[in-house]
């Protein structure tokens, strides 16, 4: 009888701990979102200023991206319970997603070289693109 009681008590304890963890993650996600908003508004004020510093803006954008990755980690590992699954399953989900590292790097590099091509060889581009091209001195002014 007492054994049964202690088992339910243990279960109850695990239960409370689990619910606590869920709410803790909720507050963590909210705080990270609030920080992200703060950085977003900082970028806004930098852009409004007379001489926006592109390096500073890029730094803040990098910070927001890192915070977003942290949020994604908490959602997947706590809310989706992927952290509780066995290692092999985690790996079959996570390893294919590593392709994104290459995707992002390669495609953004590609986009950037298109911009550089348009800006440096304006007259070699088809007429339809020439009309839409902003003159080369604009380059790097705004990201």
């Amino acid at each position, binding site marked *: 009888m007492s054994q049964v009681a202690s088992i339910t008590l243990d279960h109850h304890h695990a239960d409370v701990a689990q619910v606590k963890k869920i709410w803790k993650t909720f507050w963590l996600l909210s705080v990270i979102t609030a920080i992200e908003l703060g950085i977003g508004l900082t970028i806004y004020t930098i852009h409004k200023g007379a001489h926006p510093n592109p390096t500073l803006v890029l730094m803040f954008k990098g910070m927001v991206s890192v915070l977003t990755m942290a949020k994604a980690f908490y959602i997947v590992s706590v809310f989706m319970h992927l952290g509780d699954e066995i290692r092999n*399953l985690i790996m079959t989900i996570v390893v294919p*997603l590593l392709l994104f590292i290459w995707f992002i790097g390669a495609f953004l590099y590609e986009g950037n070289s*298109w911009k550089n091509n348009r800006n440096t060889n304006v007259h070699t581009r088809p007429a339809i693109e020439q009309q839409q091209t902003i003159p080369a001195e604009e380059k790097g002014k705004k990201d």
Partner: protein
Amino acid sequence: METVAVQPKTKLWTGGRSPFNVSYGKLMMWYFLMSDAFTFGAFLISYGTIRFSQNFWADPNHVFNAFPFAGHTNLPLAFVSIMTFILILSSVTMVLAVHAGHNMDRKGVEKYMVFTILGGLAFLSCQAWEWTHLITGDHQVLVNGAIQHWGTTTTHNPWGHEVMFNGTEVATPGPIAFGGYFFGITGFHGFHVFSGVVINSVMLIKTRLRHFEERGHYEMIEKAGLYWHFVDLVWVFVFLCFYLI
């Protein structure tokens, strides 16, 4: 006589059980979500590529600065942060529904599923307002030396460079890709939210009909939960790519 005891190296892959220690349905839900992540990733990376290829792009703090019933007050990021908060909160109620399911607490599952569905509907309503505001918005744009009034659509982008015209500051047409990417990606995400609400509603009805109680477990709630959290996960990245940077 020597007996060689052949110890199986692992018990996981010798058959007779799931090597990943999850049911077939849950495993396939994970693989579906992984493939869906690639779909969203491809959309967002395509958006990034086009954005990187332009000298000028619309400033999100400028585009998304409106709030319902606030008129023309400049409130950058305010409305979208509420949308984000709604989605995070509905993710929490979903987790609590899954948790109640583990305890075979039917009333708890019902309660939290209702909250989750309401959260999804609230998010969709916010998105409907945001889209309406952008599409029906009225912005002065200088086109071929004359002022036109444009909203943000897939063919019109009134968020280009600002120039002086007759003493006032007016915008010029911005990169046309902006509207297509914004409505395309947030629309695809909104459709996921919509289908999530439908799935959650079906789960709520099945819970009320005691289907899971009779089955002895609430695993369907877990699978619907995985999908719902994925929708929240995608929004985190949409929020980053369209509103923050």
